[in-house]
């Protein structure tokens, strides 16, 4: 007998979909996947959205979300095929032998019950421990996972602890029944980057200390490289490549894997500031109506023509609010904005058409940024008609030029947004912004909803268009890799203030202020041992202080 905990052979997974106005039909999500997982090892499942990675993870618990069904192959856990056993056996497996950590702990905890009850529930249910022992074990796990006040945190309700803490509680929930295997489904994806690193370290340590095997599912190769022994790369329901972490990261064989490894390594030469900035933000302070604190405090930044200023910060830093102030959707309580040599009026409705035209915006969610009832031609054509009065063949010609610029063919004019892929949608939004011939475009997290490879394509396109159209970008993002790829200057925001501002090379070179240091060092790097290095460094620093 080998010590394999999980043995998957020819796993096929399908689902029934209900397209509007058509008959329901079955589609295949996973087309035959094989892998083994040894006791105490961690296998990383990586792929873009639609790769089937979460579906495979849940299949190891004989669970299909929604209309998902396991249609073929075998999944052996501890030597028995769970696709062939009855519901009783499956129940004793779930929560006992195999447990699950979801992406959103906030939704996965029952809001009406205390954390401790929920953490110990499975262990007691499966007769692994009595209530008292289970609670003792939970407290031990809370301590191990670095939760504050481990003795009493279990008495709280889920909404009474922070997101990062709740994600650790979810890990404790999964480890409490002493399972043989834990499925981690994007456990750090919803967290801010500085929180992610701590949770990641806590999870890694907990896996090592308890000797449990794990399936670690994520779209972020740099993250999975820190916790896994092996990695399996998936794409559209097929396995692309399987190997040790070292082999996948340092010598990938398949082209797709190579692309994933080299993602976000765009080289961008920083441009020097010219004399006159196109956008001057001076002393901007703002608050939302009905609140009593400033979400922006005395912001001063400049953006030069044809260049990119990246605004970096985590959620709640005020970076998107700054965009609302610049566009005039939220008039500031103090300060002024100069655009193209003219002072912008604080509220959007009073701005002249010329100001509106020259300042365009691209949104994070291309889905909601386009009217689903308008064709691509109408969406791109409207600014041409509205600002320049273009009509008929002249307008058609210009639409075609713009479609060519965003690398979409002529067939796209008559399509509706629902018929486009995520990347294509974002390209159409870029074309709509460019149609106004703007001096400046605000890009609000434009790549964060996209898969890494698609996001890379969008960034390259934006850089290329900047050269052609000589347009300036105010690029709002939480992702430092994107910042490196695209910016000429950077403003780091934290709690409504700009804590560091300057050219890219200045901002990204030491000496750092505390927050920028924390932020920069928290971004996962695509190399083995990165997590240990960072943690060791931080320990040294705190010892030095």
């Amino acid at each position, binding site marked *: 007998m080998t010590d394999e905990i999980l043995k998957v052979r020819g796993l096929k997974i399908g689902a029934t979909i209900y397209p509007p106005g058509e008959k329901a039909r079955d589609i295949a999500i996973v087309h035959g996947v094989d892998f083994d997982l040894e006791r105490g090892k961690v296998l990383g499942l990586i792929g873009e959205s639609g790769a089937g990675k979460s579906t495979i993870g849940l299949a190891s*618990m004989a*669970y299909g*979300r929604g209309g998902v069904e396991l249609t073929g192959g075998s999944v052996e856990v501890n030597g028995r095929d769970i696709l062939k056993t009855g519901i009783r056996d*499956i*129940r*004793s*497996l*779930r*929560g*006992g032998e195999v*447990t*699950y950590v*979801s992406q*959103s702990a906030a*939704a*996965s*905890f*029952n*809001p*009406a*019950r205390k954390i401790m009850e*929920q953490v110990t*529930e*499975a262990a007691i*249910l*499966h007769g692994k421990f009595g209530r008292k022992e289970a609670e003792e074990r939970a407290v031990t796990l809370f301590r191990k996972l670095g939760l504050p006040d481990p003795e009493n945190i279990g008495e*709280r*309700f889920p*909404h*009474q602890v922070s997101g990062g803490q709740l994600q650790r509680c979810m890990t404790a*929930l999964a480890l409490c029944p002493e399972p043989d295997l834990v499925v981690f489904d994007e456990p750090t994806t919803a967290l801010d980057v500085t929180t992610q690193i701590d949770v990641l370290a806590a999870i890694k340590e907990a896996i090592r200390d308890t000797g449990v095997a794990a399936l670690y599912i994520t779209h972020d190769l740099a993250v999975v490289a820190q916790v896994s022994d092996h990695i399996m790369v998936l794409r559209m329901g097929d396995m692309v490549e399987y190997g040790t972490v070292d082999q996948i990261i340092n010598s990938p064989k398949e082209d797709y894997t190579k692309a994933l490894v080299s993602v976000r390594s765009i080289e961008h030469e920083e441009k020097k500031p010219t004399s006159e900035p196109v956008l001057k933000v001076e002393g901007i302070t703002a608050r939302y109506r009905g609140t009593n604190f400033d979400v922006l405090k005395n912001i001063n930044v400049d953006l030069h023509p044809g260049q990119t200023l990246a605004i970096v910060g985590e959620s709640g830093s005020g970076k998107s609010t700054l965009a609302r102030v610049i566009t005039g959707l939220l008039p500031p309580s103090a300060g002024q904005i100069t655009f193209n040599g003219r002072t912008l009026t604080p509220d959007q409705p009073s701005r002249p058409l010329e100001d509106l035209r020259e300042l365009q915006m691209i949104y994070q969610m291309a889905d909601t940024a386009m009217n689903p009832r308008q064709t691509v031609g109408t969406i791109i054509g409207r600014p041409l008609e509205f600002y320049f009065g273009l009509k008929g063949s002249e307008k058609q010609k210009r639409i075609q030029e713009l479609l060519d610029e965003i690398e979409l063919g002529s067939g796209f004019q008559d399509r509706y947004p629902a018929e486009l892929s995520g990347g294509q949608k974002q390209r159409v939004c870029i074309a709509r912004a460019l149609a106004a011939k703007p001096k400046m475009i605000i890009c609000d997290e434009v790549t964060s909803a996209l898969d890494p490879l698609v996001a890379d394509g969008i960034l390259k396109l934006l850089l290329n268009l900047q050269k052609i159209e000589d347009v300036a970008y105010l690029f709002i993002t939480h992702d430092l890799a994107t910042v490196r790829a695209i910016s000429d200057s950077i403003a780091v925001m934290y709690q409504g203030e700009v804590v560091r501002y300057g050219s890219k090379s200045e901002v990204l070179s030491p000496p750092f202020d505390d927050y920028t240091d924390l932020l920069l060092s928290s971004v996962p790097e695509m190399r083995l041992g990165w997590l240990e290095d960072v943690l060791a460094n931080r320990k040294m620093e705190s010892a030095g202080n």
Partner: protein
Amino acid sequence: MGPMTKLLVQRISLGLLLLLLVSVVIFVGTMVLPGDVAQQILGQSATPEALANLRAELGVDQPPVARYFEWLGGLLTGDLGTALTSGQSINEAVGRRFSNTLFLAVSAAVIAVPLAIFLGLLAVRYRERWPDKLISATTLTTISMPEFVIGYILMFVLGVQLRWFSPTSVGYRPDADLFTRLESIAIPILVLTLVVLAHMMRMTRAAILNVMQSAYIETAELKGMPMLKIIRKHALPNAIAPIVNVVMLNLAYLVVGVVVVEVVFVYPGMGQYLVDHVTKRDIPVVQACGMIFAAIYIGLNLVADIVSILTNPRLRHPK
């Protein structure tokens, strides 16, 4: 004061304010017509003396605002006024009939509420299978029928053809024993039950489905818990507020159904009293009854809001 108490106080004062505004609306509603109200009521053939009497009775010669406050003052001190047609105190008539109506409505609710919740759970348990489909087909049918249609069909079949129960409630005596009373209103109870059952079932089903689709139910499933235990420990604590909401909403709906059903079965309740006096254009009675029905309606909605505030874990256990 905790956030919960604050919200409760806020919600209750809002309910009281609403009630006050409703009294304005009802008062204004009975004065919407320009011109002579007395003429409207008595018609063209009325004698001048009768008109003058009625004007004095209605107090038309006084300014409307003064009349409103006089009326409101009466309401607040429990004096509903005097009926124009009979010259009798409205309090007395309403007092008798209100308990009758309450008896009918409560009897229907006692059957309808548990049944609706049970069937709603059944529909969720067998979702998209035949019990669910049967339930939604029945729902569609009963929702599409006015109360009086259901009333007459049942009266004809159960009361006249089969002679199981008395076809009308003419023989209802409030002082008879419980069984006799229930027998004489068996068909009206059945009608009201059918009327609210459909809505309540449909809404209960939706409320429970909403809870069952939450991620924390999936967590419980992935802990290997049996379905019944999941429903008891994870779904129910979160489903109480939405279900209470559904029940209250439908009881409010029942209040309206009662009006029509009482007329169909000639049951001596508030609804029949109201309709009767609308036909006779007896404004003080209409105002008083309208106010009582509206108050019950608002009260039930208020209870639903209070329950959902009380069961909200975020408010019960503030940070």
